[in-house]
């Protein structure tokens, strides 16, 4: 299976469920298990929520971009914003680290993403935005020979 899709939507919380449901419907072509779908949905929800809350600081301005590629039995996702960026990525990745405790954030987003996919990379440029790349190999993906 070789396929790709690209999404652009406004950075508002109403679109969080839209984003994870859309990505999960696209990935369903690879016949993932229920657990794998839940992991992908959760990781997408984390990255999109981060873009909205942190990248765009809940201002309801700007766009979130998602790209997804299916390659054999592997899903690659890219979640991007053009927000404030992350100055210290290593610090941001630490479990329980959050810059928004007053909003009852738990600082677990990156830890959850890292646990739910095989590979996570973060690229960020303060004042220009953030890209989170997630890669996950599916266990029983069909169409390996396409």
């Amino acid at each position, binding site marked *: 299976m070789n396929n790709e899709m690209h999404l652009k939507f406004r950075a508002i*919380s*109403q679109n*969080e*469920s*839209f984003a*994870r*449901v859309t990505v999960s419907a696209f990935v369903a072509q690879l016949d993932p298990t229920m*657990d794998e779908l*839940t992991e992908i*949905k*959760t990781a997408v*929800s*984390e990255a999109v*929520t981060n873009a*909205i*809350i942190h990248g765009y600081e809940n201002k309801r301005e700007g766009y979130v971009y998602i790209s997804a590629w299916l390659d054999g039995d592997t899903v690659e996702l890219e979640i991007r914003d053009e927000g404030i960026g992350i100055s210290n990525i290593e610090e941001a990745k630490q*479990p*329980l680290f959050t810059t928004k405790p007053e*909003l*009852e*954030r*738990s600082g*677990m*987003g990156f*830890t*959850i993403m890292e*646990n739910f996919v095989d590979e996570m990379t973060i690229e960020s440029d303060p004042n220009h935005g953030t890209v989170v790349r997630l890669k996950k190999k599916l266990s029983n993906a069909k169409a390996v020979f396409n």
Partner: protein
Amino acid sequence: MSLQVHFEWKEKYILVVRLSGELDHHTADQVREQVSQAIEEKQVRHLILNLENLSFMDSSGLGVILGRYKQMKQANGEMIICSVPPSIERLLDMSGLYKIIRIDPSEEQALHRLGVA
């Protein structure tokens, strides 16, 4: 895609909150406001959060749960979580909430432990 929050009082001081649907950043505010208000305005000695019918939760849910746990502690009350679906159990485990919050397998068992039939 939304969240339903259902309240039921038991014996005047036990508040059972049943959540169904999807708990994310968008729907978290609703739970936070409704449950916070009840804790502030009523005598809640035990808050039971039933997660049985939650079909989705992410870190926003962890934040709301931890927030209410702290709020109950401050009010000298206790919070209990029950009927946690396996996918959500993983999140509670990862965040360490499993170690600090009392978790019961079912609402009946939670109530039973509190001495309610």
